[in-house]
């Protein structure tokens, strides 16, 4: 930590570690008609030191794009990112290098994200080639590599194997070890445990928890496994079609969801129940997510929302919260009420969605 501008001590504790405002990212896709795909639409979020923000939402809603933009792997079209008050896109040279070291990512796809021509050991130690001061001697690097491999439950003797020789879950652990190599302050974890069995998953989650307690590492934790998010996250942000539609503490979002999409998500999560109780009724969320090339007018969830009214088609809802929970906000004209949540036990069918999986007639 040689760079004064980016050392933690130089920053007032009130400044969030990471503060994102109005982040927008469009992709231009070839083809006819409207070819602008709005993957992120005015995203606001913040993460404090030592905090975990859980990020959940339907596949294709923009979670990985958000992660990649935070890492400056994508250039946003609008909005600002502040890391301890500094815009990382304005950094150059040594400062940029220092920033890169403090913000790391574990990529979603353990099959595609590892270079097949490198060994596991080379992949994990690659960052030290750029950040030479961290483990200056060969001996120090070798020792740290062994340590990292053991931390994630890989055998140090497997450092010479190439990624293809590992199973899916083993490959995901290589990615985690690599992200830890530079002792970062923020790690964006994109589905870090989805390919792991429960025991290894528990080991990795315990490890992340331990690092957070000892070193104050902050995590942005992307996962579709809601029981994992519930366990790791302090706060949760729910995304739908490029927007964050609900945020709050983990307890608020899980136990008292305000947005109908969040309620549907919570109710679709499978339940480990071996007592033989009758399966729960669920909110059956039908239909595909609308095309991001042609998002619905007004509320983006309205094509699948069973609570939708005419106003939902004409006016996009803005974030609102209840007096009792001012920091628990949702973008919905008709947020879930206590009665709604009670009756969510019985199947609620969207009135205007087609049943795509109806048995073939």
């Amino acid at each position, binding site marked *: 930590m040689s760079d004064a501008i980016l050392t933690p001590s130089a920053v007032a504790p009130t400044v969030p570690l990471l503060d994102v405002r109005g982040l927008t990212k469009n992709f231009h896709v070839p083809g006819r008609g409207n070819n602008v795909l709005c993957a992120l639409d005015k995203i606001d979020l913040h993460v404090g030191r030592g905090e975990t923000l859980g990020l959940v939402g339907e596949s294709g809603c923009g979670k990985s794009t958000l992660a990649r933009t935070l890492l400056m792997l994508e250039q946003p079209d609008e909005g600002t990112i502040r890391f301890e008050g500094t815009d990382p896109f304005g950094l150059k040279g040594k400062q940029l290098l220092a920033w890169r070291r403090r913000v790391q990512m574990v990529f979603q796809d353990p099959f595609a994200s590892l270079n097949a021509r490198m060994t596991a050991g080379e992949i994990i130690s690659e960052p030290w080639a750029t950040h030479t001061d961290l483990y200056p001697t060969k001996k120090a690097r070798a020792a740290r590599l062994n340590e990292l491999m053991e931390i994630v439950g890989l055998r140090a003797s497997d450092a010479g194997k190439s990624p293809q020789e590992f*199973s899916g879950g083993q490959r995901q652990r290589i990615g985690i070890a690599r992200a830890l190599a530079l002792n970062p302050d923020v790690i964006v974890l994109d589905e870090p445990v989805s390919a792991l069995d429960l025991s290894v998953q*528990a080991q990795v989650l315990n490890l992340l928890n331990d690092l957070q307690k000892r070193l104050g590492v902050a995590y942005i934790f992307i996962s579709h496994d809601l029981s*994992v998010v519930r366990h790791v996250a302090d706060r949760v942000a729910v995304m739908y079609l490029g927007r964050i539609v609900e945020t709050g503490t983990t307890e608020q979002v899980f136990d008292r969801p305000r947005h109908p999409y969040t309620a549907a998500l919570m109710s679709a999560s499978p339940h480990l129940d071996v007592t033989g109780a009758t399966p729960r009724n669920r909110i059956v969320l039908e239909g595909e997510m609308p095309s991001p090339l042609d998002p619905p007018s007004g509320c983006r969830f309205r094509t699948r929302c069973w609570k939708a009214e005419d106003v939902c088609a004409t006016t996009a809802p803005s974030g609102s919260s209840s007096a009792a929970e001012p920091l628990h906000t949702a973008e919905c004209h008709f947020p879930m009420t206590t009665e709604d949540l009670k009756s969510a036990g019985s199947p609620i069918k969207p009135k205007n969605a087609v049943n795509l999986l109806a048995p073939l007639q």
Partner: protein
Amino acid sequence: MSTHTQSVSTAREDLTENEVVLRVTGLDVDIRTPKGVLRAVNNVSFEARAGRTLALLGESGCGKSMTAKAVAGLLDPVADVTGGTVVLNGTDLAALSPKQRLKYAGPELGIVFQDALTALNPVYTVGTQLSEAFRIHQKLSAKAAKVKAIELMRHVGIPEPESRVDSFPHQFSGGMRQRILIAMAVALNPRLLIADEPTTALDVTVQAQIMKLLRDLRTESHLAVVLITHDLALVAEEADTVAVMYAGNVVETGPVREVFGSPKHPYTRGLLDSVPADVGRGADLNSIAGSPPELHRIPEGCVYQSRCPLVQDVCRAIRPALEAEGAGRTVACHFALTTANKELDHV
């Protein structure tokens, strides 16, 4: 039902529900590596039944994908089946020549690979890829095969299949691509579907849709499903029976409810105790201390001995065989009954 959809979802008259479709007995798979030949799958036996789902569970790297590929005859070049039989509806696949096997198993056995989202070829349209099976195995014309492909896309819930059949894979969402792959695997109305982590990359709402699709195929066409997943909640909800693997060996089998309700193998116990359930936020989760043995150092005796809280001398000397342990259940442990009754301390 219009005639051209028949092979998509008609119940097969030649299959009765619960009849054994696949019986794997004593399957061994060896991998050739610079360190020598390693046994990745050892003496694995299980069966899959019509209209039922068998879940294959186990630690990452324990050989689940290898088993699936061996059953499908699609092992990587470095791996070989060196023992056992794979009987699909009465025919031993291992006894067939590769060519005969492709001809027989192609239509009868569908597989969705673990790295499914990269499995579609980006340069061909989804329609072309879906039509291929019909053209090869049913010798249909391009036009007739396309009609079948559209029907299949409709069946797996792709809206407006007529206009989307000529789209390329990247023009579909992850969930849609996953359903297209399942559609390809069941295109020829197979008896058996092996799905290796079919929903790992997907959120719970899409996962729920895919599971419903598999349920429908099971009831409508008596499809037998082998589901490989780490998601115990999913197994609890979707599977009828479960086979738990550890270090290349099956260590416990039985009906899901019974195995989850009262596991008899210490490894199964450890796995279930690792569920992130009621421990508070920030508290440590249970996990099984240690890691599985290296493939070239699988010990004599029980494969689980290095991590087992119940280990005794006999475990180090004699490998427990998979033996019947109550109705419909098998366990490979010298102290199976103890596991069911005792508080285990894993950490």
